[in-house]
């Protein structure tokens, strides 16, 4: 069984449990001996506390003794029904994961319809539905804020979801795909390929694209390298390619920071951005509502 690293432990537990039950039973039976005969007086046992409080040889009260026996019977019945003796599964076949799955199934049956209700509706319509957005917001606050922030403005490496600037496209279908299947954005490391000077030149060119002041010579040198090395993904016009998640480099949105130092770092070291897939985890109905909420952040209701 996978719970144990070696079969020693299952025997260790089994033997200890069985020995304990047998031992405790023997102890209780032994202690229950010594009933007083008719007319016999209880004798002092020689233990005295608080000057005159003495222990007598009276037998255990019956009801109390029976409680001991009941606990022993309980233990045996429990061990027969539930897993407890090493790898023995028990008659009921109960398991923690089984319990979890059962409860999750019940929860889904109970709460599922609440989410399912909106699934057939178009995202563009849901954006105008306050209740749907409230559910979407709750889902967002639970599953998305860790990376994208409570205000969905993102963080370094985690895109801002409110600015209508999309790496993989901003249509409801694109957003839904991103959440369902996740995304893997890869910017290769170019430092070793184009050299330190090449990186500096490309950075100068790219910064110039969004209207920042750069050195003319470096920028024109960078343009040549860009056309050979970068245009494949980011496009000849550097506007990016939503099909593969290549960023638009002509605007002032910088996923990994817009300072010169940050841009140099991005080009020479590359980046690996990962959006995890949520489809299997959340299910289509919840993702649909999440899509509507995320879409509503950059699209006001019609």
């Amino acid at each position: 069984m996978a719970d144990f690293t070696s079969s020693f432990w299952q025997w260790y537990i089994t033997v200890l449990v069985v020995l304990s039950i047998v031992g405790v039973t023997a102890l209780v039976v032994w202690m229950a001996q010594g009933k007083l005969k008719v007319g016999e007086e209880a004798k002092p046992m020689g233990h005295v506390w608080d000057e005159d409080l003495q222990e007598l040889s009276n037998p255990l009260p019956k009801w109390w003794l029976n409680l001991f026996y009941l606990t022993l019977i309980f233990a045996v019945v429990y061990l027969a029904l539930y897993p407890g003796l090493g790898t023995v599964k028990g008659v009921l076949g109960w398991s923690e994961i089984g319990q979890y799955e059962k409860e999750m199934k019940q929860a889904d049956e109970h709460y599922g319809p609440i989410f399912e209700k909106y699934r057939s509706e178009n995202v563009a319509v849901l954006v105008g539905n306050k209740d749907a957005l409230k559910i979407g917001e709750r889902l967002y606050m639970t599953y998305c804020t860790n990376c994208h922030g409570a205000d969905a403005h993102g963080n370094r490496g985690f895109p801002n979801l409110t600015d209508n600037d999309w790496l993989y496209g901003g249509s409801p279908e694109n957003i839904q795909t991103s959440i369902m299947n996740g995304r893997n954005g890869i910017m290769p490391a170019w430092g070793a390929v184009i050299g330190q000077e090449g990186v500096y030149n490309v950075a100068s060119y790219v910064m110039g694209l969004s209207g920042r002041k750069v050195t003319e010579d470096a920028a024109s040198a960078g343009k040549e390298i860009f056309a050979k090395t970068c245009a494949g993904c980011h496009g000849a016009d550097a506007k990016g390619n939503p099909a593969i998640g290549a960023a638009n480099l002509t605007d002032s949105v910088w996923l990994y920071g817009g300072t010169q130092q940050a841009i140099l770092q991005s080009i020479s070291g590359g980046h690996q951005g990962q959006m995890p897939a949520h489809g299997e985890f959340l299910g289509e109905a919840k993702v649909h509502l999440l899509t509507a909420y995320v879409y509503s952040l950059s699209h006001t209701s019609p």
Partner: protein
Amino acid sequence: MTDSNDKKEPPPAEHAPSKDDKEPPQRVMSLVEAQEAAMRRKPASDGQPAEKKRRSFAGQRPQAGQRMVTLAEADAKHESLYAKHQKVYPRMVHGFFADLRVILASLTLGTFYGLPWINWGAERQAFLIDLPARKFNLFAWTFWPQDLFYLAVILIISALALFLFTAVAGRVWCGFTCPQTVWTEIFLWMERKIEGDRMKQMRLAQQPWNRERILKVGGKHTLWVLFSLWTGFTFVGFFTPIRELSVATVSLSLGPWETFWVFFYGLATYGNAGWLREQVCTYMCPYARFQGAMFDRNTLIISYDTQRGEPRGARNRLVDPKSKNLGNCIDCTLCVQVCPTGIDIRDGLQYQCIACAACVDVCDSVMDKMGYPRGLIRYTTENALEGRPSRLLRPRIVVYTSILIAISLALVVSVLLRVPLMLDIVRDRTSLYRETNEGMIENVYTLKIMNMDNSDHRYVLSASGIEGLKLDSALTEIAIDAGQTRDIVVRLVADPEKLSKRSNEVEFLLQAADDKKMVVREDAKFLGPIPVRP
């Protein structure tokens, strides 16, 4: 247990000398046996008004050779851990303390049964603990789960008050205001109305199950059950609006929990006040047991004045007790008969005594009839009984009183200054800070705002603490309906040049647009990069 089969018919002699201490003690009767014996005697005297008159307040005095014993004594004789319950039939009392108890019982019961019916405004029940809505209406106030510490303070005040009153006046709580006493009192009243006084009750219990007994006992229990159900209904009325509850009750459409609590609380009332009575005080109540810790020699207790009373004994009213070498106690045992817990106060202070002062009232009436001064049984202190002066101002009284006053004042001030608005700030935990494309530093906060007031409000939010700090929020005014909570996500934006530390204190200020006094402030942290020193 004493076997009741060997009961002997008491000797028919009346008024035999009761001073038989020197003689070897004959069989000791338990209180119940004495009561039974007295009852068997009673019918014989019915036809003799003269004799009846003579015993008007002496009740059924034990016969010669028999000493009336208390429950505790009777139990001690039988070496069993289980004391069989002996029903106590408290005799009706009139007097100052009895009247006081009636007044206090009317007040407390009146409050209990009346309060849920009072409305504050048109629709709002003045006292309602609305569990589904998580709120508590108290006249004009509405309290929320966030105000729960007020409950803790009220409980502390109650406990301190209990300590103080116990230290000063003993178990006044038990004797006059405890629900157990109060409900038992009203159940006793109902019992007397139907079954008659103590003697009639005891005789009824001896009768076979004939028509009279079935009718009377059945009627009593019917009345008790109805009253108990009304009590349960009222109890639930503190949690479900009682007018809706009455409609639901009449149309038999109570919810499962409401039904459960009506019957459960009803059963508890019926069981506690009808059946358990003094057993609750002697066996179940924890307070009865730890009260001793609060008693001292200056605490008011109900006590029999042994010096004045002993030696006790029967005598004619016109005889000077001194001539017969007797004290003031005429040994009429009325103090035992009226006792709701079935003890003999003349045996000294006992843990069963709930200080109801019934024995004080009845003994005073006897002393009046005998022409002796009142107060053979009275409120006094251990010091006073021993001839020492009693002091009211002791360190423990001063300490209890000052703490009690301080906490009560703090509660009143705190409730009066309470702002029905709550602001909780949750800073985004997963990121330290964010650099915008403009090079500014942003922190994100989720604000939980709760309007705890009874009317809708609009609020204005602002933040301060860093030079040039900007609050970036989608809303300029936050509208929240009465009793609602709203989550607002806001950003604070600061210039990194102005940040002198990595962690900076900022303060959010939330103010109602229509009520300048409704303000809450809440501190938060604003994180930034390591400052660059010039």
